[in-house]
């Protein structure tokens, strides 16, 4: 049977076919849909869960693998930074049930804070790396990855990019491999307990495994030579193979699926069979460096294909064929359409107040990062998941107590990000007698990635109920003075402003929880507001809240605000901002 599947859907299917029994992840674009699809289609056979962050996800996954289950763990590229600690030592311990870590890279930063090339992690952690180049391979190679994981007793890094994860193609489906149950726990401290004395002898074992994998790559079906015109030999993997294949279908190809360790003997043999060797890869010269290190001459690599951003198929074609494509100039002067907070978003009013207070805002990762853009422009840093609170603490430590608004600092973080890694930052601030105001924008979901459950929502990935972690009690238990913990409606601008003003004046850390659910995920829609054109003075204050339901329109020679009832959710933020009471229901 055939289906059109995205790379992520195909990975979910591949996990099921491979007999996976446990899967976990923290949502992150472009990896999120893998676990969503596991939960939606294969919940009977695969026990799947969201974890609060990528490190715990990988550790939970390791527990499942040690207990003998084939285990899938998924995250986006930057998530592997969070999970790097367990990953590197898992390469020492090895696994029992196969463990595959799927990491989805995001060249061109479609929805990320950097575009790191996670292929480097395979080399760094000394584990095998597999890269599929379409959805069929995403499914099939995942099964191969589990076999390699068990055969070589190692976690396997399975790397996609946005164009693999979010591209769809036709997939021939297979059946599930029913594997025998894991049986009892195995006690083997020399394998799983990484004391120096037990870990030291593991290092040469890892090196030996890599040497064996390198040799295996010569004959593995994950790698293949596609003989063609011997004038040009192209080495490629992942999505860039497709770009190159389309550009020069007649050329000779070495198409790699197992890209670390590189099957150097295979590359040498291929290089001998062609006149020119060209390496086509996105981001870092990962293959090129390995090939050059093996003493093979590379005619073109990163001199032709940029190290920055995504490779564009058109540019790849122009380079490889030497022929320029006919291009037409785009229409000029068109207004850009950047992403924006949704109409009715519970973050909007909070950023309006922060802008008004003129404080320095240490931000975090989520939809609310859009608060940095015009017209709200009230977020001044955004580094990584959970970075807001410790950065605010560090800033406040250096600045010291001040009544000057411009040097006062507020951390802004969402609920899912707070549970991910904001909690430890708050512990740091409390422990070290720090002082900053932390705003937790609690919208009861993980909104940016499409609305996943988190530890505060009271539900798990399966949709079943679970204990709801109480944020207020948590921060009080950590040591925030109960009087400094404020819960206000995100839509009550006066209450948000009063709470912030009062807490900024206090000498110890405060937590202001702005609690209102995500309008998109919870489908919230109330009676829309409208503008009374008689009362409206055209002052544009409402426009500065940055809502696409609002615009200035000209009628009878007068420019006044107007609300599009198709977009307005009735959140009232603009009505509260209007000084003339011109926005009414």
């Amino acid at each position, binding site marked *: 049977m*055939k*289906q*059109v599947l995205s790379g992520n859907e195909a990975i979910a299917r591949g996990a099921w076919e491979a007999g996976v029994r446990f899967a976990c992840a923290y949502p992150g*674009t*472009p990896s*999120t*849909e893998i676990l969503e699809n596991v939960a939606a289609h294969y919940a009977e056979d695969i026990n799947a869960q969201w974890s609060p962050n990528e490190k715990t996800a990988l550790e939970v996954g390791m527990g499942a693998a040690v207990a003998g289950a084939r285990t899938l763990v998924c995250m986006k590229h930057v998530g592997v930074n969070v999970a790097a600690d367990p990953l590197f030592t898992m390469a020492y311990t090895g696994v029992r049930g196969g463990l595959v870590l799927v990491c989805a890279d995001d060249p061109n930063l*479609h*929805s990320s804070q950097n575009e790191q090339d996670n292929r480097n992690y395979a080399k760094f952690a000394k584990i095998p790396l597999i890269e599929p180049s*379409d959805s069929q391979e995403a499914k099939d190679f995942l099964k191969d990855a589990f076999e390699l994981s068990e055969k070589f007793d190692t976690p396997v890094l399975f790397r996609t990019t*946005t*164009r693999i994860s*979010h*591209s*769809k*193609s*036709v997939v021939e489906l297979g059946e599930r491999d029913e594997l025998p149950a894991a049986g009892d726990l195995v006690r083997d401290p020399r394998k799983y307990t990484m004391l120096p004395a037990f870990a030291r002898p593991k290092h040469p074992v890892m090196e030996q495994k890599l040497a064996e994998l390198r040799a295996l790559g010569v004959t593995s079906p994950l790698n293949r030579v596609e003989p063609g015109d011997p004038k040009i030999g192209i080495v490629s993997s992942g*999505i860039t193979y*497709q*770009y190159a*294949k*389309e550009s020069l*279908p007649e050329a000779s190809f070495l198409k790699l699926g197992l890209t670390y360790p590189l099957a150097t003997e295979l590359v040498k043999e291929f290089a001998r069979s062609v006149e020119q060797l060209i390496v086509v890869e996105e981001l870092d010269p990962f293959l090129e460096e390995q090939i050059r290190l093996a003493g093979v001459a590379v005619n073109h690599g990163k001199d032709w294909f940029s190290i920055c951003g995504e490779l*564009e*198929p*058109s540019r790849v*074609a122009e380079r490889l064929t030497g022929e320029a*494509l006919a*291009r*037409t*100039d*785009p*229409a000029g*002067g*068109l*207004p*850009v*359409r*950047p*992403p*924006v*907070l*949704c109409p009715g978003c519970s973050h909007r009013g909070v950023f309006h107040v922060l802008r008004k207070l003129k404080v320095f805002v240490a931000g975090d990762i989520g*939809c609310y990062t*859009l608060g940095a853009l*015009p*017209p709200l422009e009230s977020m001044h840093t955004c580094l990584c998941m959970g970075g807001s609170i410790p950065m605010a603490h560090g800033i406040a430590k250096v600045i010291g107590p001040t009544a000057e608004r411009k040097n006062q600092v507020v951390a802004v973080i969402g609920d899912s990000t707070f549970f991910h890694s904001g909690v430890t930052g708050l512990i740091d601030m409390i422990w070290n007698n720090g002082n900053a105001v932390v705003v937790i924008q609690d919208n009861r979901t993980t909104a*940016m*990635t*499409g609305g996943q459950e988190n530890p505060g929502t009271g539900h798990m990935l399966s949709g079943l109920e679970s204990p709801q972690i109480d944020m207020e009690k948590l921060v009080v238990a950590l040591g925030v003075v109960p009087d400094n913990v404020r819960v206000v409606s995100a839509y009550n601008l006066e209450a948000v402003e009063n709470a912030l003003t009062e807490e900024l004046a206090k000498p110890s850390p405060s937590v202001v929880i702005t609690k209102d659910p995500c309008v998109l995920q919870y489908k919230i829609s109330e009676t829309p507001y409208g503008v009374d054109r008689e009362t409206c003075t055209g002052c*544009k204050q409402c*426009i*500065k809240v*940055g*809502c*696409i339901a*609002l*615009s*200035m329109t000209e009628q009878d020679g007068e420019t006044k605000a107007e609300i599009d009832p*198709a977009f307005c959710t009735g959140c009232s933020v603009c009505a509260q901002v209007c000084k003339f009471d011109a926005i009414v229901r």
Partner: protein
Amino acid sequence: MKTINILLSGVGGQGVLLASRILSEAAMVQGLDIKQSEVHGMSQRGGSVVSHVRIGDAVHSPIVPDGQCDILVGFEPLEGLRHAHHVKAGGVLLHAVDPINPSTVSAGFATYPTDLDEQFARFACDTIAVPAGELAEQAGNRRSANVVMVGALSPLLEFGPTVWDHALEAAIPAKLLQLNREAFRLGRHLVCDKHGLAG
């Protein structure tokens, strides 16, 4: 069969991805190879979105090469115009007529183009304006404007008579199917009538 390159462009939230899904399903039912590419996440928050759909006997890259688009479907006029230069000479540009202001326009940083027709006319392709919102309302819900656009695109692809039915069934929940079938039909008829094609 030569690969057909289709771009679908619009505003996050308009249902561009669902439209791509219907199109992909149809191509698969027709027995063709298909590659489709889209971007999720940040760009869905009311920003510009574009989806690439390529169908043919054997398709490698999921991305339409610059200037090689056979059919562009703009779910919003400005978003149609933004990608119009990708349509090759003699290609077709379908666009919905219902504008949605970008935040930059609402906020007064930019103005929405008032000379859309002249701008579309600059490009050497066949431009078809589709009153998608109006037809969707006629079908029963303005939100089905995306399916109207798929209907409008459908006569340009020579798929078998039941292919689109299967595709709609596969991509749309049962309770919304009737409404969307009607939206599809209205879009299809509009283009068939304009071009004297059989419905």
